């Protein structure tokens, strides 16, 4: 008879995840028990405090690494901590946008246009469930890149997705559209996690172990059935590629980006991408590294289609949020080249790119929340015409983010693109670099078209105005701008910092 061994947990290494989960639970309790007046401010301070505390914890444990933080299920190493830090910085910025309760429905359960909804708006009641949902999603995102076995990966994937499905449906204006986005995101998200799980089952069947190390050893040993391995890799990849929005698994992203409340879109676009690519990098760089001949051709093809398709289709978009969605698809393609590179330079470049792209995304969507008319946000590109003449400062900030997406020098985007393509070149994959550079050129066209539209056309008088943003929105937008420019002008300290930490522990 075996005696029961209690699990040994290293609480200090797990503290960022645990702090965020604790904050989320406190948020639920505040939602249930605090009075209506104190609720918004209490939720906001708990959320900010939690994320800040978690970020400080990540900084404090930055040099450490351990495989046994949670009995081998969670690995804390340089890339994990860098990704957790990026996710926390991005979430802090995004919470600045979420804090503007103007975007969220007062009572999500009320049917749009019903008497119940009117009553809730009249009474000024505002539910603030968005904050704990955000924290639960952040906790899942922190766990996802740290997961070292298939169970933890699956649970973390669902932990970050389930709150996001709900958050997508909470918009105050155009509520039916928002609910539709939530439905689409949910059905396709659940569909893709089923693929992920099926792939996980076959990987377990191949190696007899659920841990990534066990899978890696079986792959090196090479004694198992290669067909089972191939099915496992293919299905697991579908699940991950869906989350990052790579073609042909991108169908959800323009719809969800457009329908979800803009602060949620900002959070989802930036932070989910970091978490999903974090997990993807770990899986492909450790578990599947020695089977690269199995997955590299497939992933190369997907990266090429993704970059090209995202850039070309973005040109045809007339809605600013949809355009940014297709741009994020193209960026997923650029990031995939970092996964395919499969060398240390590729890992470092991906980590830098993820952070730079995430911050610029939050900033860009932050600007989108500011351009409004009497019925809410204006996302039609035509009505952005001449914005630069009406409010030059906001338009210049938006232009800076677009230039960062396009990869113009002196912005973080240039350093990101340059390092990721040079890593791909170093790995000998010249075709993908060629397609990447070409797609960047196509993508630059539609970014610059928006800038031309804003600055070199006369404004149309149709009630489109730039509202005076709240303090927190300002902090978010200016903070993102500062980081974007700083990483573009002085990238060296940050690149060195990444380089000193970016080694997967296995």
């Amino acid at each position: 008879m075996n005696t029961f061994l209690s699990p040994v947990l290293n609480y200090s290494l797990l503290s960022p995840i645990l702090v965020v989960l604790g904050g989320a639970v406190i948020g639920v309790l505040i939602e249930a028990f605090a009075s209506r007046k104190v609720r918004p401010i209490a939720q906001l301070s708990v959320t900010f405090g939690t994320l800040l505390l978690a970020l400080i914890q990540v900084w404090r444990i930055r040099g450490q690494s351990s495989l046994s933080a949670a009995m081998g299920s969670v690995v804390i190493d340089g890339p994990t901590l860098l990704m957790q830090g990026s996710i926390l910085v991005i979430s802090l910025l995004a919470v600045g946008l979420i804090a503007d309760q103007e975007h969220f429905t007062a009572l999500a359960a009320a049917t749009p246009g019903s008497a119940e909804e009117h009553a809730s708006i009249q009474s000024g009641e505002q539910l603030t469930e968005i904050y704990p949902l955000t924290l639960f999603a952040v906790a899942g995102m922190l766990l996802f890149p740290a997961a070292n076995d298939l169970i933890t990966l699956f649970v973390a994937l669902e932990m970050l997705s389930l709150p996001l499905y709900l958050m997508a449906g909470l918009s105050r204006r155009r509520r039916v559209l928002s609910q539709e986005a939530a439905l689409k995101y949910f059905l396709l998200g659940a569909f893709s996690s089923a693929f992920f799980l099926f792939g996980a089952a076959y990987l377990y069947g191949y190696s007899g172990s659920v841990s990534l190390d066990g899978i890696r050893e079986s792959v090196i040993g090479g004694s198992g059935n290669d067909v089972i391995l191939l099915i496992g890799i293919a299905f697991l990849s579908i699940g991950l590629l869906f989350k990052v929005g790579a073609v042909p698994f991108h169908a959800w992203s323009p719809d969800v980006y457009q329908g979800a409340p803009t602060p949620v879109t900002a959070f989802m676009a930036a932070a989910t991408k970091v978490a999903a690519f974090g997990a993807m990098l770990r899986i492909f760089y450790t578990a599947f590294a020695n089977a690269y001949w199995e997955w590299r051709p497939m992933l190369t093809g997907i990266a090429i289609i993704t970059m090209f398709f995202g850039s070309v289709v973005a040109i045809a978009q007339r809605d600013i949020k949809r355009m940014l969605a297709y741009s994020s698809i193209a960026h997923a393609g650029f990031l995939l080249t970092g996964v395919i590179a499969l060398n240390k330079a590729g890992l470092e470049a991906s980590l830098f790119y993820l952070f730079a792209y995430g911050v610029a995304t939050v900033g860009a969507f932050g600007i989108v929340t500011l351009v409004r008319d009497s019925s809410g946000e204006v996302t039609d590109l035509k009505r952005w015409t001449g914005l630069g003449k009406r409010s030059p400062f906001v338009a210049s900030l938006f232009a800076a983010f677009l230039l960062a997406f396009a990869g113009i020098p002196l912005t973080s985007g240039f350093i990101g693109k340059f390092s990721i393509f040079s890593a791909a070149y170093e790995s000998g994959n010249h075709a993908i670099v060629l397609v990447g550079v070409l797609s960047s050129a196509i993508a630059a066209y539609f970014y610059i078209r928006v800038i031309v539209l804003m600055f070199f056309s006369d404004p149309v008088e149709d009630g489109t105005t730039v509202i005076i943003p709240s303090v927190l929105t300002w902090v978010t937008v200016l903070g993102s701008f500062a980081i974007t420019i700083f990483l573009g002008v002085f990238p060296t300290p940050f690149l060195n910092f990444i380089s000193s930490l970016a080694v997967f522990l296995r």
Partner: protein
Amino acid sequence: MNAANYLYVSALLFTIGAIGVVVRRNAIVVFMCVELMLNASNLAFVTFARINGNLDGQVVAFFTMVVAACEVVVGLAIIVTIYRSRRSASVDDASLLKR
């Protein structure tokens, strides 16, 4: 009995589920098909646990059941809300975003 037969059943269930998601129009039925796919994966996990001779796969099956239960809660909440706003749970009607 040959354990591989269970893998065939699981692959069959997974395929039925995947086809159902693509073909069926009612959000509830689509969701049930997703659940079928999750259970097919569970069957694969348990079969592989038997073939490999360790218990890890059976543990995963329990985790999957819990996660699937959470997914039902969130999913039905979303489907019921959208049904109440437009009196239909058909995924074809949810097409405002296509334009």
